[in-house]
């Protein structure tokens, strides 16, 4: 009986060790792999030839095609946020500060982050699924054989398009969100458009708008890069496509929050 118990305990410990090693090992392997992937991106992005047509095509698909979704989301967020904030401000007798408060919240935080998350959901998963399916069907290998640099053609263009389009989408989402907020304010009150936007712009400063827009470049870069990385490094088989799309969304969304946290910390260093 004695040796049996000993063998069991050793086995359990070993399993636990293997389990932890597999989790941490996988994580660090993933981090290293991503770091190399990023370094390769920066190498390839500066090296000619430049794929302008593909960049424009991807910008159209990633930016223009995402606008309806981002616009509707921004509008609803602006509207709902205004309606939800009104009772709290009403308690303080500060309903007149509603446009200013919604504007600052929307421009500084909610607009960029919501746009980033929607973008991660739509574009991150799309890129992940597209590239992983190309990978599993060996289209990427075929491109390489035909003399085209698949990394430059597929990854660089998508990452650049995502990096450039997300700030534009965030600006438009902010504008549409303010429009939603204006309607939200007028649901229970009567404020003219000129007075509403006067209050909005009086409450805003450059230190509200510019850091928020700058961080969306990083959001876009992270989402594009993660989508491409997950798709480009997908396992073979149809299972790999689903996994790549799913993990691209999850990881990209997480990165959006992480970057946002870091950006807020940096911004608060010089903001009074």
């Amino acid at each position, binding site marked *: 009986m004695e040796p049996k118990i000993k063998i069991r305990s050793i086995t359990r410990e070993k399993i636990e060790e293997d389990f932890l090693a597999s989790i941490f090992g996988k994580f660090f392997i993933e981090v290293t792999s991503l770091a190399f992937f990023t370094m390769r991106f920066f190498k390839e992005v500066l090296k000619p030839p430049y794929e302008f047509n593909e960049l*424009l*095509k991807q*910008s*159209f698909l990633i*930016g*223009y095609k995402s*606008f309806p979704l981002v616009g509707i989301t921004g509008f609803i967020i602006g509207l709902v946020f205004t309606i939800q904030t009104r009772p709290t401000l009403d308690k*303080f007798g*500060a309903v007149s500060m509603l446009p200013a408060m919604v504007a600052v919240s929307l421009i500084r935080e909610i607009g960029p982050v919501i746009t980033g998350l929607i973008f991660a959901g739509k574009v991150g998963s799309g890129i992940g699924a597209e590239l992983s399916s190309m990978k599993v069907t060996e289209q990427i290998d075929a491109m390489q054989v035909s003399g085209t640099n698949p990394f430059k053609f597929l990854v660089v263009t998508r990452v650049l398009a995502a990096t450039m389009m997300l700030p*534009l*989408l965030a*600006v*438009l989402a*902010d*504008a549409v969100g303010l429009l939603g907020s204006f309607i939200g304010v007028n649901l229970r009150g009567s404020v003219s458009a000129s007075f509403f*936007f006067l209050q909005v*712009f*009086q409450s*805003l*400063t*450059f230190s509200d*708008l510019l850091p928020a*827009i700058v961080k969306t470049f990083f959001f876009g870069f992270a989402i594009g890069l993660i989508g491409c990385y997950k798709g480009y490094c997908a396992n073979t088989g149809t299972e790999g496509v689903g996994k790549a799309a799913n993990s691209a969304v999850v990881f990209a969304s997480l990165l959006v929050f992480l970057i946002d946290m870091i950006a807020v910390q940096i911004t608060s260093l010089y903001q*009074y």
Partner: protein
Amino acid sequence: MKKETSNKIKLGIFISIGMMVFIVGIYFIGEGKQLFRKTFRVSGIFKDVGGLQPGNNVRLSGVNVGTVDNIMIVSDTSVRVEILFDETVRKFIMKDAVASIGSEGLIGNKTIIMYPGTGGKKEIENNDIVQTVPPLGVDDFMISLKKTIDNTTNITSDLSKVTENIRSGKGTIGRLLMDQSMDQNFDSTVANLKEGSAGFKILMDKANDIDEILTSLKTTIDNTSSITSNVSKITDSIHSGKGTIGMLLMDSTMRQNIDSTVVNLKKSSAELKTLMEKAKDSWMLWGF
């Protein structure tokens, strides 16, 4: 190919709109901070700026006409505040303008309130230093409020004592309100007043008789007047030593005469007494 061109046009429009919205946003935010307007700079030295920050508004007659550009601590007792004014309001701000620090609301941002100065003075110039008024801080307000509250506490305490006295029927008002006998007295007073007024009415009805009374009263007053006049003359005579009483009261020789008369009378009476004693012993008056 055609679709590709169309997509590029759509993308171009999308990017243009996005950029335009961004630039419009930048413009309007900058406009609020006087960034795209012609401005002039004025400074003010404050002892305490009470939390004023660069970017806060400057108001003239309640209108935002500028922004706080910079705040610098010059020494331990003075803070220099640089203000950017819209060029169009220069004609309203004179050399003797005064700047004060106020608040946009109870929980709002700090703001500089400009008092334009007196008319007839020269307009303010670039880099001028305006006079300032120390701001009324929240601490000052709280101190003032505390004094008011203390006074109110004293007043309410006194008022409580007064109402307590009234409730216990002390003092005139207390008795008036709480004492039942007072109430009865009041009732009877009112009743008397009613009776009195009824009598007064009757009296008024007989107002014709009053003329006779007044005539009689006038005669009496005239008589009294002549009597008092006579009395006055008499007292004057007495005072000046005229007449018997006057001499008696006011003349010093008369007093001496009376004194000597009295002395003589006393002396005479003593001698008379001695004589009577001797007469009693005399054989001629035996049997008396």
